[in-house]
């Protein structure tokens, strides 16, 4: 099993550009999450999904959109990137059961100039 994978690993954008961060998991998990981590800080939840076709807002959703068209994929979109969105983005997944741990991808380092 590859676990949770993210693409790309690194990305540099100019202000106003758009892009999509991709996340895939092969563990048949129902729940998937997108977090951002700013330097010296913890992880903050952007959006999450409890199943295919459903998404919900987390703590810091502004400026981002997400889609979960397939159970194994969770996409994070930036429609008009801003320097404040420079961060490391982590995707995670876990089983629906209340007694299961969360697994993380390796992260995507995004710089917006």
């Amino acid at each position: 099993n590859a676990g949770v994978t993210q693409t790309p690993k690194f990305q540099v954008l100019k202000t106003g550009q758009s892009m999509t961060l991709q996340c895939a998991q092969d563990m048949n998990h129902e729940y998937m999450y997108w977090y951002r981590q700013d330097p010296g800080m913890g992880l903050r939840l952007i959006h999450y999904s409890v199943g295919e076709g459903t998404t919900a807002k987390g703590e810091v959703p502004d400026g981002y959109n997400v889609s979960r068209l397939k159970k194994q994929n969770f996409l994070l979109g930036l429609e008009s990137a801003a320097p404040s969105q420079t961060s490391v983005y982590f995707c995670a997944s876990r089983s629906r059961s209340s007694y299961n741990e969360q697994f993380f991808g390796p992260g995507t380092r995004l710089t917006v100039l």
Partner: protein
Amino acid sequence: GIQVEQSPPDLILQEGANSTLRCNFSDSVNNLQWFHQNPWGQLINLFYIPSGTKQNGRLSATTVATERYSLLYISSSQTTDSGVYFCAVESDRYSSASKIIFGSGTRLSIRP
């Protein structure tokens, strides 16, 4: 929403020392995990521990759910233990029961 506080924010120790990291949370939880983020940014699962005590080698964790805290113990520290330790919780007291919220972390530096 639920609040998660970790202490201390920073900890510097000599190799071989022991340490205790604390995670306090503001409401009842049904899910609590400890993670280690290594210097390369990778998040590594340490413990899934909503209650009770678990041990894995030099690391152990205890969660006292009724008193709303969890402790992570590291014994005989090694330089490879350096990094940031995060506590993350989920509470079913809120409508969005699948949200998992992270504390701000404890940055541990082990000196050789």
